[in-house]
């Protein structure tokens, strides 16, 4: 296993003036990156006890990436937070992670809650290492130590932290470097927010390969044409993004007319890409190889497929083959392991990048895992909640989700977390959130809310404003209906199928059934 830090420092020795990171707010050559990340690492070590967690409340920028490297160098786990998410949710993550220090952009230096030490990016970078006598103590982190913590939606109403070890991270980077064949002349876009797992590939494979890593400003990622111009003007060669963003680029930018001649590698993950828009995209970027990477945040990539014309003729794009050292099993509801082609089971994954556990949630960790033998050796598998089958060509095929979270625009959302947030709004008696399938976005969330009996005046706008204050934007329902009661199944559960049907305006029978239930016109935003 090659150490990430050693690999980056080797680039600094061999090619010190090569640009390592470039973007808004500055750029670093490899030698500048080495010097600056060493200095920041030493400052961090002087501020907190060994092994302390550092929260990064930072917008995506070259300096944010520098601080990630400094944390890694110092053996301090980092938690990237979404600077665009509501403060209360960030505060929860800061508390839950037990972090000793929060590094923030200057405008966010004013804490809302918490007792953690806060330091701005400016202060951290401008402090010189000579101030810190402790910095001479060498760092010898272990592969079992935590490298970073990523938060993902949790069904119990709060996000949950996924603990990724240095061994997990280095194994993933080793695989991805070999798979992508990234090289010094590559220019790698960092498209997804830093608190997701896609940038782990962009940043760490990019830097260990000696490539130039180019964070895409969050305001640019909102606009397909602005993203197109960024990719074109920076002659980006490697792009890794979720299908929703790529479909936006295809439909709402000049991509189809003008292509991207520099792009050689287009990777996607995070949600299903339907063959029709994917074919259109592949036609629009004829110079690029397109690959489908699959695996939840708990495992990172576990299967991969280079998408070829033969795959585009199928109903669904296959997930591909397990990557090096990964194992995939399919398990039926009855607990049987699928060995025949065509039979569907839940996808179970294991490999060297399977995360250690959920932070502070042994119950969730235990529920997400199964111990199963492969060739007589027991492995711990992660239960994905996704359904798959083996094709006759040996490829793993995707059959949708069995249960649990939904994917909207590549983001993972537990409807239960949105429901819990809605239920906290005064005047709300009950809420149900369902995923409505959508071609571009995978799914959109629709909330059905019942008001408390004395609060008939509850308005969708109030509910929407509450969600905007409490949830990151991708978790805010696109549709909100106020109803007087939720439909129930025979066993008293919420009839989610009936709710889903009610979101379809063509389905008049169920819509009228709902109207009978609520006794008042449904209001839809």
């Amino acid at each position, binding site marked *: 296993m090659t150490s990430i830090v050693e690999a980056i420092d080797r680039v600094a020795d061999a090619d010190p003036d090569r640009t390592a990171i470039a973007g808004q707010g500055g750029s670093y050559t490899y030698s500048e990156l080495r010097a600056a990340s060493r200095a920041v690492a030493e400052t961090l070590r002087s501020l907190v006890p060994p092994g302390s967690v550092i929260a990064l409340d930072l917008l995506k920028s070259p300096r944010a990436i520098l601080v990630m490297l400094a944390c890694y160098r110092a053996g301090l786990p980092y938690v990237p937070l979404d600077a665009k998410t509501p403060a209360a949710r960030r505060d929860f993550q800061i508390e839950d992670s037990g972090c000793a220090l929060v590094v923030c952009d200057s405008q966010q230096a004013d804490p809302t809650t918490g007792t953690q030490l806060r330091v701005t990016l400016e202060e951290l970078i401008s402090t010189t290492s000579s101030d810190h006598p402790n910095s001479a103590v060498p760092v010898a982190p272990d592969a079992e130590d935590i490298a970073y913590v990523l938060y993902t939606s949790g069904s119990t109403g709060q996000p949950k932290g996924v603990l990724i070890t240095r061994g997990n991270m280095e194994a993933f980077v080793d695989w991805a470097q070999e798979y992508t064949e990234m090289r010094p002349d590559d220019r790698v876009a960092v498209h997804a927010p830093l608190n997701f797992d896609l940038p782990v590939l962009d940043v760490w494979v990019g830097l260990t390969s000696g490539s130039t890593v180019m964070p895409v400003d969050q305001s640019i990622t909102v606009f*397909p044409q602005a993203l197109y111009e960024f990719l074109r003007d920076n002659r980006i060669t490697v792009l890794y993004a979720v299908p929703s963003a790529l479909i936006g680029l295809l439909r*709402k930018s000049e991509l189809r007319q003008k292509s991207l001649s520099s792009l050689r590698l287009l990777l996607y993950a995070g949600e299903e890409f339907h063959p029709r828009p994917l074919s259109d995209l592949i036609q629009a970027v004829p110079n690029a190889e397109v690959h489908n990477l699959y695996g939840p945040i708990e495992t990172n990539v576990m299967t991969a497929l280079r998408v070829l014309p033969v795959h585009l003729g199928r109903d669904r794009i296959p997930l591909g083959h397990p990557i090096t050292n990964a194992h995939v099993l399919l398990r039926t509801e009855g607990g049987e392991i699928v060995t025949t082609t065509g039979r569907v089971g839940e996808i179970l994954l294991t490999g060297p990048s399977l995360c250690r556990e959920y932070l502070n949630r042994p119950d969730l960790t235990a529920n997400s895992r199964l111990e199963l033998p492969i060739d007589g050796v027991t492995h711990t598998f992660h239960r994905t909640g996704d359904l798959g089958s083996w094709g006759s060509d040996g490829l793993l095929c995707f059959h949708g989700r069995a249960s649990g979270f939904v994917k909207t*625009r590549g983001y993972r959302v537990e409807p239960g977390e949105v429901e819990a947030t809605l239920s906290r709004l005064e005047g709300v008696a009950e809420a149900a959130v369902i995923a409505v399938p959508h071609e571009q976005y995978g799914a959109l969330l629709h909330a059905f809310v019942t008001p408390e009996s004395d609060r008939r005046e509850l308005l969708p706008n109030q509910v929407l404003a509450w969600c*905007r*204050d409490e949830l990151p*934007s991708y978790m805010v329902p*696109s549709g909100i209906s106020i109803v007087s009661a939720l439909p129930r199944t025979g066993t008293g559960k919420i009839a989610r199928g009936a709710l889903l049907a009610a979101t379809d305006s063509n389905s008049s029978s169920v819509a009228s059934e709902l109207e009978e239930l609520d006794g008042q016109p449904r209001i839809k935003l």
Partner: protein
Amino acid sequence: MGSPESNCDAVRRIAGARLGRFVAEDTPLLDEPGFDSLAMADIVEGIEDELGIELPAQSLVPATFKSVSTLAAAVDKVVPKGGES
């Protein structure tokens, strides 16, 4: 019906409905909570459907969404489909 709604009023109404809050002519849309790629696409789709126009891809950049006024100015530049005889 009253006097026809100006493009600026229509943009303000559509953006406000999607963002779930009142927006004024000079509200910096880019800084509004919840202004993300989906909100942007929804606002554009709402404008295109209601006004019967198509905003060119080149206009879908941050500068256009600086405020309701800048977005309305981009709408003004587009000849309504229905208006062509």
